[in-house]
């Protein structure tokens, strides 16, 4: 710590940004039961977002896909609410998140994936395209 205090501020900034950049980026998709009402679904999403942010994670992006038909039944249900969260976090926080997924009865399925650099680039490009399309629609 003493060394950090002696450093000029720009160096500290540099190290901090570098630290943030060093964190792995993850992408998690979960399927919630179709039995939930809209407010219950929002609550479930908020719960998992809170788990991510509480463990010093930073949410980069999230997307709600809404009610979708499943390709095969899971727990005798043929539809489900899909939700995607992209975030940066320490690697050991993933296990914590997945335990929470397993404990929660509302979650039918989940998948957490570490994003490699091409995946990050792809996601950013996709987002940029989407926002550009929205702009065009508004105009």
């Amino acid at each position, binding site marked *: 710590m003493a060394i950090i205090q002696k450093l000029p501020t720009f160096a500290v900034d540099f190290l901090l940004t570098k630290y943030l950049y060093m964190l792995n980026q993850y992408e998690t*998709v979960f399927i919630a039961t179709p039995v939930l009402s809209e407010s219950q679904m929002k609550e479930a999403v908020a719960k998992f977002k809170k788990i991510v942010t509480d463990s010093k994670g930073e949410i980069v992006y999230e997307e709600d896909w809404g009610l979708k038909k499943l390709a095969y039944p*899971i727990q005798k249900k043929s539809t489900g609410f899909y939700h995607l969260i992209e975030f940066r976090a320490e690697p050991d926080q993933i296990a914590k998140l997945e335990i929470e997924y397993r404990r929660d009865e509302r979650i039918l*399925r989940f*998948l957490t994936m570490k994003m*490699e650099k*091409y995946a990050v680039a792809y996601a950013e490009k996709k987002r940029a395209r989407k926002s550009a399309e929205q702009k065009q629609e508004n105009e």
Partner: protein
Amino acid sequence: MAQDNSEIRYLTPPTVEIKKKKYCRFRKNRLRYIDYKDPEFLKKFLNEQGKILPRRLTGTSLKFQRKIAVAIKRSRHLAMLPYVTDMLK
């Protein structure tokens, strides 16, 4: 007579079909990442039963065949693609 003609043509085809060279569409289009969230795209690499097509049919390079396989398996896990079906296309 007409039948004879067609038979002769069958025995000695006038034009030899030139084999179209297969290529890896990821190499060609400079795609680096295969998205598991896009089942419509991944369906190009499945047969009617939902099985992954071999490399020798699609022409995909080894590197991207591995990535496709992983993407399809992720997609199946999230019920965006079926594990087993009939008449997928």
